[in-house]
């Protein structure tokens, strides 16, 4: 699996992702500068967390215009894999690869915590190493992670089963108290209609290294790895 990790000025989880794909999973991984647009050698493009270009206008609003994102859109159109984590998810919605938007957290504060998530669907490479309905724990760290979309978009997301991760209680119940940021329908991560583009606010790369505790995030990368191994 050839992994490309996008680096914008202001990205700050780029190396954390590289640590997982290259350091823990031994996959060839390359960092892609925001001005580059050659992704021909890449199987999976990962848009990492951080504050691309400072996020001063609106999270991800500037990043979508970068050469690397234009190339990433083409990469996705070819049916190849794209994963956006945290700021990466925001960038993917701004770039139009995923529907909806991420707005300011409900209580207006940045929130860094570990939260339970239910895995809603496991027939995609991203989640095929999880069990459907399984409750996993992943770290979150964002100020603008409240998922918003209009009613029609939400309905089509649900009808097409595009919600992959939902905030839930430790017992797997979907209740408002376990919603850390006010996301509609408790949405933590969604994919596009084809399923090759995933955006999620939680950080799977922060729950991958056994020496730091939880490893619920590692299975997402492993799932991707086995899917790509099957294709090639």
């Amino acid at each position: 699996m050839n992994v490309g990790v996008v680096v914008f000025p202001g990205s700050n989880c780029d190396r954390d992702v590289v640590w997982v794909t290259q350091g823990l999973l031994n996959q060839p991984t390359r960092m892609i500068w925001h001005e580059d647009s050659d992704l021909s050698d890449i199987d999976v493009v990962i848009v990492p967390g951080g504050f691309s270009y400072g996020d001063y206008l609106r999270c991800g609003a500037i990043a979508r215009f970068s050469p690397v994102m234009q190339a990433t859109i083409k990469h996705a159109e070819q049916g190849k894999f794209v994963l956006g984590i945290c700021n990466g998810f925001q960038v993917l919605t701004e770039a139009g690869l995923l529907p909806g938007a991420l707005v300011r957290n409900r209580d207006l504060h940045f929130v860094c915590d570990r939260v339970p998530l239910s895995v809603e669907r496991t027939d995609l490479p991203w989640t095929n190493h999880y069990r459907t309905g399984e409750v996993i724990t992943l770290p979150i760290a964002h100020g603008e992670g409240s998922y918003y979309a209009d009613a029609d978009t939400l309905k089509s997301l649900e009808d097409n089963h595009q919600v992959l991760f939902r905030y839930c209680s430790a017992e797997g119940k979907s209740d408002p108290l376990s919603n850390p940021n006010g996301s509609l329908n408790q949405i933590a991560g969604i994919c596009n209609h084809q399923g090759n583009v995933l955006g999620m606010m939680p950080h799977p790369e922060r729950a991958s290294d056994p020496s730091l505790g939880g490893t619920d995030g590692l299975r997402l990368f492993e799932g991707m790895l086995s899917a790509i191994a099957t294709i090639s």
Partner: protein
Amino acid sequence: MPVIASAPFSAEEIAAEGIKPEEYADIVQRLGRHPNKAELGMFGVMWSEHCCYKNSRPLLKQFPTEGDKILVGPGENAGVIDLGDGLQLAFKIESHNHPSAVEPFQGAATGVGGILRDIFTMGARPIALLNSLRFGSLDDAKTRRLFTGVVAGISHYGNCVGVPTVGGEVYFDPAYSGNPLVNVMALGLMETTEIVKSGAKGIGNPVLYVGSTTGRDGMGGASFASAELSDRSMDDRPAVQVGDPFLEKSLIEACLEAFKTGAVVAAQDMGAAGLTCSTSEMAAKGGVGIELDLDLIPARETGMVPYEYLLSESQERMLFVAHKGREQELIDIFKRWELQAVVAGTVIEESIVRILFKGEIAAEIPATALSDNTPIYHHELLKEPPDYARQAWEWSRDRLPTCNEKGIELASGFLTWNQVLLKLLDSPTIASKRWVYRQYDHQVQNNTVTLPGGADAAVVRVRPLANASSSSFVADPSSLTKGVAATVDCNARYVYLHPYEGAKAAVAEAARNLSCVGADPIAVTDNLNFGSPENPIGYWQLAEACRGLAEACTEFSTPVTGGNVSLYNETLDSDGKPAPIYPTPVIGMVGLIPDLSRIAGQGWKTEGDMIYLLGLEVNTPSESVTLGASEYLASLHSTIAGKPPTIDFSLERAVQTACRDGIRRGWIQSAHDSAEGGFAIALAESCLSGQYGAEITVDASPDRWDHLLFAEGGARIIVSVSREHQSDWETYLNLQLDAHWQKIGQVGGRSLRISTANHLWLIDATIAEMQCSWQDAIERRLAV
């Protein structure tokens, strides 16, 4: 005729730069002429306490600064220690108190930015931040604004720049109402083969200005930081800088990349006193001079005069000396990160700082006059402790209302010990700081081993991202076994009531906290936050605290590698009457963890584990375990009096060694020191953190039950040990600690229950009710 009478400035203009009349005379003598406006401003900032330590330098001399592991001590941008295996750690603490008092968000944010620059200027990648914060009472609306603003500012800057905020402390006390304290500590891992120093070298070498542009923001911040706050301080808001964490993140990457080229001779960040400080310090340290042309400095505003260029504290700027001929290589790196980079000057032989502006000399001052050979004030130390201290020391516990095994009769009515416990857990200083640390990204960089609130010190894995010669990542995760632990500590009430003992206690607690996670304490960075040294009581507090700090750092073999001095932390009311803060020497301490698989958190781990008290026994009324200066006395009896517990260094070292050994041998499951709130609160915190109850039996019939439950001190650590290791552990304890340990109970149930051997129940509180008091105590007070 005094020289000041012939000055081209009025007495008010001179005073406005923070310069005293006798200092002005000194300046004239050194220059052989009157200074111009720009030069006067340069002297004003460089001779401020913040930059030249004119009041504290004689006291700082007594600190131990050398040791086997110390690679860089005081005098550089940060201290550096050796972690073995080629790993080196840079660390430093700094205050941003006065800016935060008038503009909490930017004041705190730029405090984070400033300390990070001190770290990466050395060639180290910042890997962790901690902060030590003090505010007035949350009942006060102004304090709530300051507190929420400071937390938001730290969150804004630290999160964006991508350095995890892994630990810290927050205290609330009316002593800080008008003058909050914001101290930030940063740690970094060296990424360059050579530590980058700040002394300019090589006559003719180019001086590069890199980073952000220069504007009129933060004018005279260093002088502002070295004066008392008053009800007119809000007018000084322009002296507070505005930070841009995004730019700083790019600056980190660009600087580290630049250092790795080998083209950089020396580097210095522009913090306090901006261009003035960086040019004069680099020149003075290198024994050379610097000529700088202001017309070449990238400006963000038009029409700036030399005075403004030189005193601006615009953020995210650095000064480099480069090898001649290699400047373009460096400029290209900065351009790639969309940052400014220009050659703005040259290293010259004559040891002066010469500033050019529009083709003329705008300022010319001997470099050492600004940064080395600066004024020193020796103050007279009071022969006797001041009245406030002597009166406080007369307090004895006999003055407390009577109590029995059930509780205590207060003016407000009878409180059971359970109620007292819950009340203490609800006091914001003891309560959970979750509201604060949830707003800080504490996991970015993927190395955070213990989460905030989970252990007595922060633990971060040491994982070099790249070595100097290549950008390849360390491939083998199993080789990454080392960690660093860090903590910031100071019980300022102790220091106020007894500066010497209080300062010793701060160092001892820092070392104890590191030991509780299993780390060997290595070195200290200190932040001395005090009132005015010109006031005899203020100077007595400073001098006595420095004496205690020096002695304790020697006793624990933890040399001081640098730090920060913040004096004049006072608020003047409209009548000019000063109200100083509690003297607060914050100790930032770092330690080494050789094997990350052998560490401990503060929460109970397993039902049935045995609980031990290390240190002085539960019922020891002595100078080392006392209700004097305690949180119980302050919170429940509104009394700030008594003497704080004294420190027994040999007992401290023995207990801390036992704790570390127990952790490394795999015996100890959890370890937590007994600090504010004493024995009972420490037990409650282990219950809350681990979500298990505990059955505790104390074999004692004390004359005061509150002493048994809530007295502080005694070098105490509470540990839990699995049953299978009980006999090994106890054999070891008999050898290591003699009689200074007790088996006091075991982990289990859903309540903390403390009873005596003859079945008197003192405490019986469920985890749920303790949680209810403790968890949201801060949020509840903010919700008004």
